[in-house]
């Protein structure tokens, strides 16, 4: 973990005033980063917004890291207006990251909205993966598909308004998929997205006795485990999303 001033290589608008992909040049963070980890950055060096904002590492390319973010408030709004060659104060990589599967495991990735960000990075480190499921409100919320090409896997899509793929929730896709994966191989699900989606994913995984890792979001202050602010209830007491997570075994969480 380190604190750096990272140069903005590109801050690309993917969907006007909504989704952006930010590339930062930061060799040390790029070298250390593992899928599922995040960076904690200051969108500016002013008093507002006061706190840093956490974002999953979306991909790593040589000396650069990328994040994929959605404008949801003032902080991300300011971030979206930062320009190429400006410097951002970044702390990272933070958190535990995804536990990589062994070769004999069948991997399913389940993404909701901007949650696809961390799963793209994970897919860069996977040997194979039978299915990637991506869900969003509408087709405009389906992102990062190109990043999974390397895996030559089937990408299934769901949208709540039916504008792309199957109409419904991404967990409906998972529900349909799991019974078809007849195989003696153990299955592991990696999920990232809104809390409701993760909860449902955990339920389905448990029903099918699949191992399931979820990446949780809580309001994060220090990002390094010091302030105890991002507590989440687990069967082993409160844990810190920023340090003990953000990735947890879904069975550990008290949903």
């Amino acid at each position, binding site marked *: 973990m380190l604190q750096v001033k990272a140069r903005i290589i590109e801050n690309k608008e993917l969907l006007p005033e909504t989704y952006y992909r930010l590339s930062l040049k930061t060799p040390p963070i790029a070298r250390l980063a593992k899928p599922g980890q995040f960076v904690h950055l200051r969108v500016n060096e002013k008093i507002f917004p*006061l706190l*840093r904002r956490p974002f999953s590492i979306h991909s790593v390319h040589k000396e650069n890291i990328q994040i994929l973010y959605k404008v949801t408030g003032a902080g991300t709004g300011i971030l979206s207006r930062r320009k190429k060659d400006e410097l951002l104060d970044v702390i990272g990589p933070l958190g535990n990251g995804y536990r990589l599967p062994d070769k004999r495991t069948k991997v399913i990735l389940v993404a909701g909205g901007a949650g696809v960000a961390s799963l793209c990075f994970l897919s860069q480190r996977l040997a194979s993966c039978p299915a990637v499921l991506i869900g969003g409100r509408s087709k405009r919320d389906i992102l990062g598909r190109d990043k999974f090409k390397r895996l030559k896997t089937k990408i299934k899509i769901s949208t709540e308004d039916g504008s792309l793929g199957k109409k419904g929730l991404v967990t409906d896709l998972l529900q349909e998929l799991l019974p078809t994966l007849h195989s003696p191989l153990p299955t592991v699900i990696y999920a990232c997205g809104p809390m409701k989606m993760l909860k449902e994913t955990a339920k389905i995984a448990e029903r099918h006795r699949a191992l399931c890792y979820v990446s949780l979001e*809580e309001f994060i202050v220090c*990002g390094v485990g010091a302030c105890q602010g991002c507590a989440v209830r687990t069967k082993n007491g409160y844990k810190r999303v920023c340090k003990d997570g953000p990735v947890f075994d879904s069975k550990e969480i008290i949903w």
Partner: protein
Amino acid sequence: MKKINLKTNLGRISLKNPIVLASGCFGYGDEYKDLISLDDVGAVVTKTITLKPKAGNPPPRVVETASGILNSIGLANVGAEVFLKEKLPGLLKKFSTPVIVSIAGETRDEYLKLISLLNRKKIAGIELNISCPNVGKDLTIGQDEVETFGLVKAVRKKTNLPLLVKLSPNVTDIGKIAKSAEKAGADILSLVNTFSAIGIDAETGRAKLGGVLGGLSGPAIKPIALRMVWQVRKTTSLPIIGMGGIANTSDALEFIITGANAIGLGSAIFINPDLCREIIAGLKRYLSRKRIYNLDKLVGSLIV
């Protein structure tokens, strides 16, 4: 160029510079080890520990407010036993910086038990966090002159280590509480702790924090914290660690000029761990520019 001297003394504790990492804002030291070199700072105060481990309050535990942080961590901590076995030895071994241990209890007896556990440790001092609920009473210890006097006096009898008392700002007259602590034998005063506050979500009609009530910190509280340092400076001669919203060199200088012998960094660490080094460099530039050279000369130099 003339040498700049940032040394400051808090009674028997001498600091190489006036920066103190405030309790609860850098954990037990290991969390920030990659980002802050503890050798760079004047002293550290560890997260308040209690006799038994505390799980803390239900989430959400933090919200961001206008220029502030509202928290209801609920003193979540590992408890004295784990702290003494697993956290403190590493801190004492790896760094030469003075380590002050913050403690809290729900009864006087709990404070005294903690003191007896700490007495033989090679720590620089003990800080009494008196802003916690006082079992069987409406007010916290720190909100009552008599209770504060009683606790500090009882603790004083049991330890020769430098004794710090961390004052609560949730009082009518902080000068009076400071005076009680001084009369009871405190060596150093730390102020202020967080301001009791509440956050409401109009959409849901609920309190934003799981614990409902929280404590406000950060730049939002700085002017009130400064006023309190000023009041305490006028009523006691004890060394003061001033804190509350310090986020840059100028803030630090304001507290020192008002009367703080050292300054505490809390919330600002979360935002910029590198701030310790920035403030040290900034103080040096200021002292050189003003041809003061010794930080000591600046303490309490307020012109009114």
